[in-house]
């Protein structure tokens, strides 16, 4: 009876200290493992062999005990954590890279457009310079153009004179023929 009370107390102690290394001589042994033969552990230590005991087992004294379900420790937890954070960083990097690529696209389009406008600017500058030179040269041609206008007036006057001369010569010819007939 005293042994069983001792066993219950040790079981209660073991409930609060789960995860302790279990050894054949630890205090939790009597809590977790029953005894094969039911003999006193203090007297029969040589033939002691631990046997797993189901949790929630009712003790003979009426106290229900429960044992925390302990999962086996995962190997390389650090490696897994590192892997998780690396993948998270890659995912976030990808999310941000999409926007970066959009910006790069618009930047490239802007650069190409600015190059196009620079070419058009050079062409416009050339056209402007050429047209200024042309205007100056045409301004230099103005006296010649005035001379051409004068020449045209003089030619018109010459033509009138030629017509008058032609008319006068025809009159003369007619008079001469009349005089010749007389």
């Amino acid at each position, binding site marked *: 009876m005293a042994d069983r009370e001792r066993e219950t107390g040790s079981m209660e102690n073991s409930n609060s200290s789960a995860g302790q290394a279990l050894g054949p001589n630890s205090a939790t042994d009597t809590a977790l493992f029953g005894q094969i033969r039911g003999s006193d552990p203090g007297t029969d230590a040589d033939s002691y062999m631990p046997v797993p005991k189901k949790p929630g087992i009712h003790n003979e004294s009426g106290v229900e005990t429960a044992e925390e379900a302990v999962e086996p420790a995962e190997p390389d937890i650090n490696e897994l954590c590192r892997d998780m954070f690396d993948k998270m960083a890659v995912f976030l990097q990808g999310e941000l890279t999409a*926007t970066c690529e*959009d910006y790069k696209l618009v930047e490239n389009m*802007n650069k190409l457009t600015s190059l*196009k406008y620079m070419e058009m600017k050079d062409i416009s500058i*050339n056209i402007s310079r050429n047209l200024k030179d042309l205007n100056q040269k*045409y301004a230099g041609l103005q006296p*010649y153009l005035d*001379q051409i206008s004068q020449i045209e007036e003089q030619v018109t*006057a010459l033509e009138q004179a030629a017509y008058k001369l032609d008319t006068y010569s025809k009159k003369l010819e007619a008079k001469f023929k009349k005089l010749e007939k007389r």
Partner: protein
Amino acid sequence: MASPEPQPRFGQSVKGLLSEKVSACSGDVIALTRQVLKGSRSQELLGQAARNMVMQEDTILHSEDSLRKMAIITTHLQYQQEAIQKNVEHSKNLQDQLKHLLK
């Protein structure tokens, strides 16, 4: 935005709670990133900018074409001006001759 905190359930191990918390935090980070990107409206603004630029491209090419044609026409005008210059220098003699004729 944040996912609700997992309620501790009896019988659930500390490790299970921890893994739930970690997954919730990672989900929160992802949702936060997406919300920040969505709130900045960068996607739609940049898309609209790209579309406008594509629409303008045709006009820009047409303008460039017109400028090149204008440059060619200017070159032709220069050639014509040089020919006129050469021929106009004979008008002096012609005018003297006409003056003599009309005297």
